[in-house]
């Protein structure tokens, strides 16, 4: 096993991608590694004609993935939209890996992302020495994707300032990136497109201008429909984490995962699973991704500080950390939940004690 902490999707699932490519029969858009149908299969999982099992990457509605893939075959870009932790970046990474075989052309959007990070920058030493030349130009991931006909990814598009966002308009509508200093333009090769992600909670921070919005098709990724689906997601992700981290701990029992997912769902929805009791909703999003990290956290605790078996006390700290984001309000919400819901459940005594101990 390599000592890379986290491998790119195309490395981790190289075999699956290879098999899909071999079995691919559909029409392949230019510069795509796989046919659109195979991309959907790669994301949703399935069995290939030769019996090879493709693991599911996205658990949820297949139609959403079909819309996402179909969007990328048109000349519109894709905007994945949803609450934090609803697998937007995950889907975007795997889409790029399956379509271009490369998920690394990525721009992380922040409030400080400048135009140089989106379009191109200059190597000032060379610029001073040689004047504006092609060699002095510093390419960005977007520019490289245009030249290679690949997918560029922009994370957290709505965090980027509006003026910088709008520099994408020409790239998306004319598929070209003018470089006035060199009196030239980079023209995108077929296969180029952009996948951007943005989250609901940031709505209105830097709302996309309507000109830019028009260049994107929006796909809203929802929180999982039901408990079983969410448990499935958490279990799969935790298993892959174990493999990567080489943890000696036993895999967590399904019921532990179920309890965490239940707690998260109840707090997220503001009502208990049986629909009988209303509860307050904490300020955090409590996404599936956070449930995954709580379990992973518990696993590490059990492996390094416990007897290798995951227990309630290993999880409690993680749960509390995830729920209490605002030290005053969320604490009240959590205490109320512990006392009114957790305490009353007969087989949740251990978790109740563990939570009380930490307070």
């Amino acid at each position: 096993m390599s000592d890379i902490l986290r491998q790119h999707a195309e490395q981790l699932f190289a075999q699956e991608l290879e098999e899909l490519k071999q079995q691919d029969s559909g029409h392949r858009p230019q510069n795509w590694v796989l046919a659109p149908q195979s991309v959907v299969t790669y994301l949703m999982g399935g069995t290939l004609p030769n019996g090879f099992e493709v693991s599911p990457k996205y658990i949820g509605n297949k139609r959403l993935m079909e819309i996402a893939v179909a969007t990328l075959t048109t000349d519109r870009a894709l905007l994945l939209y949803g609450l934090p932790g609803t697998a937007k970046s995950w889907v975007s990474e795997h889409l790029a890996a399956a379509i271009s075989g490369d998920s690394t052309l990525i721009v992380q959007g922040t409030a400080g992302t400048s135009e140089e990070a989106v379009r191109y920058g200059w190597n000032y030493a060379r610029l001073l020495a040689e004047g504006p030349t092609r060699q002095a130009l510093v390419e960005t991931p977007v520019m490289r994707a245009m030249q290679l006909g690949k997918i560029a990814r922009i994370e957290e598009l709505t965090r980027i300032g509006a003026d910088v966002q709008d520099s994408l308009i020409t790239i998306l509508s004319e598929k070209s990136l003018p470089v006035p200093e060199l009196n030239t333009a980079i023209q995108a090769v077929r296969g180029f497109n952009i996948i951007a992600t943005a989250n609901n909670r940031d709505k209105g921070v830097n709302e996309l201008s309507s000109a830019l919005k028009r260049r994107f098709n929006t796909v809203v990724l929802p929180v999982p429909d039901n408990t079983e689906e969410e448990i499935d997601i958490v279990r799969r992700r935790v298993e892959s984490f174990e493999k990567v981290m080489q943890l000696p701990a036993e895999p967590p029992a399904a019921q532990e995962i179920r309890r965490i997912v239940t707690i998260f769902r109840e707090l997220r929805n503001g009502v208990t699973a049986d629909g009988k009791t209303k509860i307050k909703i904490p300020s955090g999003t409590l996404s599936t991704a956070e449930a995954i990290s709580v379990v992973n956290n518990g696993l590490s605790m059990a492996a390094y500080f416990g007897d290798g078996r995951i227990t309630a006390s290993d999880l409690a700290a993680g749960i509390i950390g995830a729920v209490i984001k605002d030290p005053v309000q969320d604490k009240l919400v959590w205490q109320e939940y512990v006392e009114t819901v957790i305490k009353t459940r007969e087989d949740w005594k251990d978790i109740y004690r563990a939570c009380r101990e930490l307070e």
Partner: protein
Amino acid sequence: MAVHVLGIRHHGPGSARNVRQYLEALQPDMVLVEGPPDADALLQWVGHKELQPPVAILCYQPDRLQQGVFYPFAAFSPEWQAIQYARERNIPVRFMDLPVAHVFALQNERAQRAALHAGNPDDAPPPLHMNNSAVAEETDDTGAMPVFAHDPISHLAAAAGFSDGEKWWEHMFEYRQDTGGIFDAVAEAMSALRDELPKMSRMEKLREAWMRKTIRQAEKELYTTLAVVCGAWHAPALQHMPKQKDDNELLKGLPKVKVECTWIPWTYNRLSFTSGYGAGIFSPGWYAHTWQYPHDDGTRWMARVAGLLRTKQMDTSVAHVIDAVRMAGSLAALRGYSKAGLEELNEATLSVLCNGEDVLLQLIHDALIVSDTIGDVPGEVPKPPLQHDIEKTQKSLRLPATAEMKEYTLDLRKENDLERSVFLHRLQLLDINWGQNHATGGKGTFKELWRLQWEPEYSITIIEKGSWGNTVAEAATKYVNSEAEKAQHLAIVCQLLAKALPAELPVAVEKLVQCIQNLAASNGDVVQLMEAVPGLVSVIRYGNVRNTDAAMVTGITESMITRICVGLPVACTAIDDAAAQKILELLYQTDDAVRLLQHADISVQWQQSLQVIAHHTGAAPVLKGYATRLLADAQVLQGRQLVQLFYYGMSRSNPPSMSAAWLEGFLKGNGAFLLLDPQLWQVVTTWVSELEEGPFEEVLPLLRRTFARFTPPERRKLGEKVKHSSTGAPLPAVADAAIDMERAQCAIPVVLQLLGIQQTSHE
């Protein structure tokens, strides 16, 4: 002779197109269609320019109206197309399903058997009720289209890798452009299914036997080329005829009832699944679109969607439409379909036009995918006289029946609007709730807001109520009269009266007034009288706008209040808490009514009656408290008298529960009364401040109980007021002498202006 069986899906635009093309190529000399032969005579109307689908054939049993069945047709129904073809070519067309006359009779028999089985044939509920679910049941049972309701097609769909039968059928047959040999393929698929799923109900066997019988009959009449249009499921049964003898055996001695049929307008909304119609379709609006524009690749649809969004102030450019159409195309390609279906178009709309927000999609669903189209039936079609009268009135008052909800604000001072209002009120009396009366904002009692939405079911109610008379006025009058005679309870008659007055039915009103008088005289129950009075008073007070003669109501109302005043004190004694609470509410309403009436004699009587209650030792304490309060409000009880009653009510010799109830009655309503009425305030605060510590602790829970009913802001204000005046100083009394007349004069114009009173008239 050649029999061509065309297996179709009911309401499938693709099937409709195929049927049309097939018939045009075949040139048959007779067409048979799945439908009720009872309605054969109605087929001559197809082709009439005013008979516009969606329409339905309504078959009902005149002596048993809860039995009714609808056979809806849209322009894209294959049956409709077949009938239309036949009418255009002037060749005979007939229905061939099992006659409804037999179906009803069989159902009645079954219901009777079930009732007998249950042991009490009289109390057995009628087998079907006239509501949506019953319509669905009906159609299931009598089989306009049982095939798709139970969906054996889903087996084929599953075999082809589709998630549901509808979708499979749509992609296999409805969206198909190349239609060669399609009916053979359908028949083959269905016969494979029928082999696998051999279970058939008796009703279904009977139906198919009747269809074969009709085909044989046509053969006997020497027609040479016969086209038979039926649900796909039945196609194999009609292609392979069993022996004639077996069918005749099966159909021998079927029971029969009398059945009548008529055309009624239908709506797309009613065709859709959402309204509970079991054999409907999801998207009639979309089907109508594909029927009208079979070669549309989504462009035209998207343009309509964009147009709709623009009317809702959503910026939608042509570029949006282009991208959405492309998106739908590539989704279809991804899924391996030759053409984008509604699902692909919806998904493209969602992600391209709506930015992922599905609220807008709901709008598109209601306005375009289902759409609120309503059909039209020509006036000459024989129909019940009441229906005829309603349609005539609708036309003359310019109140068209529409499937979408329309709002009308009627100004009763205008003649046409007044007539409209009268008409709608009459329909309401007949339980035809086409219009809903809503409260209007704004001043004046001459305005009415109506929301109108026509439902096809009203046709049934109209037929049912047709037995009362041939015009709306006549039917409403007779219906109200009979209801009034049946009514035992005063409140019911009064409600009827309140409804009958705006409906301008003088004969009925007279009858109702008479009924009320009789009931009131023979009725010793004060509670019933009190329930009736507020409604009558509002009739007197507000009825005048409509030129109705409310005078006759005034007389009986006054006599009723007198009766109440006599009986009330007794009614308030020796009753339990629940009864006291009920009377408390009625006291409030009646007092309101008396004040509204503004009749001096009545008011005096009423106050005397209240006095008796307030002083009565045996009356329920909560009522005593409230009576005291009402008298205080009316300024009848003041000063020492009031204080005395208060102290009596709250005296320590009473059990605490009695004091609590008294106080609850006294402070009924919200805390604002206490805040704004200085007299009340003074009585309560003085009493509290004079209490010694021991007794104070005793009554504290009672006070808390009463005050807990006030809202938090009110309680806070009360607290502030107490704090403010707790310095011990007596409340500033309003002394007449302290008013500076000159300065007061200066304030009057401002007050007048605030009240909106024109000052110029004084000058």
